[in-house]
């Protein structure tokens, strides 16, 4: 009972960070993931998945690049074990995202952090970490609103892709394939502007870009992203110690 009343108090105090504010803060990411989700649904359908399997992929796996790769490998009849190992490597970058966001959720219970983590994606991470710039802690309910909006948007988009995919001609004509890079540009710029450490941030950003491109000659794309993140974050740490 006392937990309930402190919850209510917190609610009144942090009205700006309510569940619905989280839902609203998700809106800029919806278009990008609608189009990618739609495409994922089309690919999964063509790979021979049933509508129930498409829905389960989005509700349980819930990871864009992972679902594309899984569909491709299922279509090419790779063994189950190979698919699972590949998906693990592709999605292991979430380790870094989850670790980077952990300090902002210190005051929450383990079960709340479990839910926050289970729904963490590149996009909700990007929105949350930008939102966190001005504060020490992130509100669980706000994060839940953000995560659930993204989750439902993704599930509906993939299901729509599975159902209507074959009748929609060329969505690229409307520039929708640029929604995702545009979102990353926006998140990156907002992040750099809000931290006001332009010198270090630009060095980190450029080195991460260079490393991921260089890595593409040697390792898979997802390993390249992890490698670039670890190395350039380390470069950032070293430079901040020097100055």
């Amino acid at each position, binding site marked *: 009972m006392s937990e309930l009343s402190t919850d209510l108090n917190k609610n009144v105090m942090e009205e700006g960070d309510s569940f619905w504010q989280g839902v609203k803060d998700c809106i800029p*990411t919806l278009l990008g993931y609608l189009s990618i989700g739609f495409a994922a649904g089309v690919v999964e359908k063509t790979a021979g998945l049933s509508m129930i399997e498409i829905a*389960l*992929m989005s509700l349980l796996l819930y990871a864009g690049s992972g679902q594309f790769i899984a569909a491709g490998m299922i279509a090419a009849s790779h063994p189950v074990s190979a698919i699972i190992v590949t998906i693990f490597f592709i999605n292991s970058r979430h380790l870094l995202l989850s670790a980077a966001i952990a*300090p902002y959720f210190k005051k929450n219970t383990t079960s709340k952090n479990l839910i926050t983590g289970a729904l963490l994606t590149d996009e909700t991470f990007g929105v949350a970490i930008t939102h966190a710039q001005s504060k020490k802690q992130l509100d669980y309910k706000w994060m839940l609103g953000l995560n659930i909006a993204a989750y439902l948007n993704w599930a509906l988009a993939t299901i729509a892709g599975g159902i209507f995919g074959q009748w929609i001609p060329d969505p690229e004509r409307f520039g929708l394939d640029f929604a995702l890079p545009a979102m990353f540009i926006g998140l*990156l710029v907002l992040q750099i502007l809000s931290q006001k450490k332009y010198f270090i941030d630009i060095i*980190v950003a450029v080195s*991460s870009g260079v490393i991921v491109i260089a890595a593409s000659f040697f390792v898979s794309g997802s390993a390249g992203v992890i490698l*670039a993140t670890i190395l350039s*974050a380390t470069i950032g740490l070293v430079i901040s110690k020097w100055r």
Partner: protein
Amino acid sequence: MSVIIGSAIVTFIPRILPLVVLSKLEIPEWGINWLKHVPVAVMSALLASELLLLDNKVSIQENTLNLMSAIPTLLVAIYTRSLLGTVLVGIATLMTIRFLL
């Protein structure tokens, strides 16, 4: 079906593990400082792969239109600081370029 459940489990674990464990620990200061660089690092890596790679191979030619669209998108992001505005301008720019060319 076993593919879906298996992949879901190996995706779930790296997502929740640091949040559940690290939020209970006192992370040393250098660890926090390192983690503070992760957002810019990971976003840049994802953006560079989106803009310059195709099937994990460097391909400027295939990405020319996207690279052109990135310039006004970047400027809008800097001047408006609006995520939604940035996404909409980006989409509109690429659509316009495709229409004109």
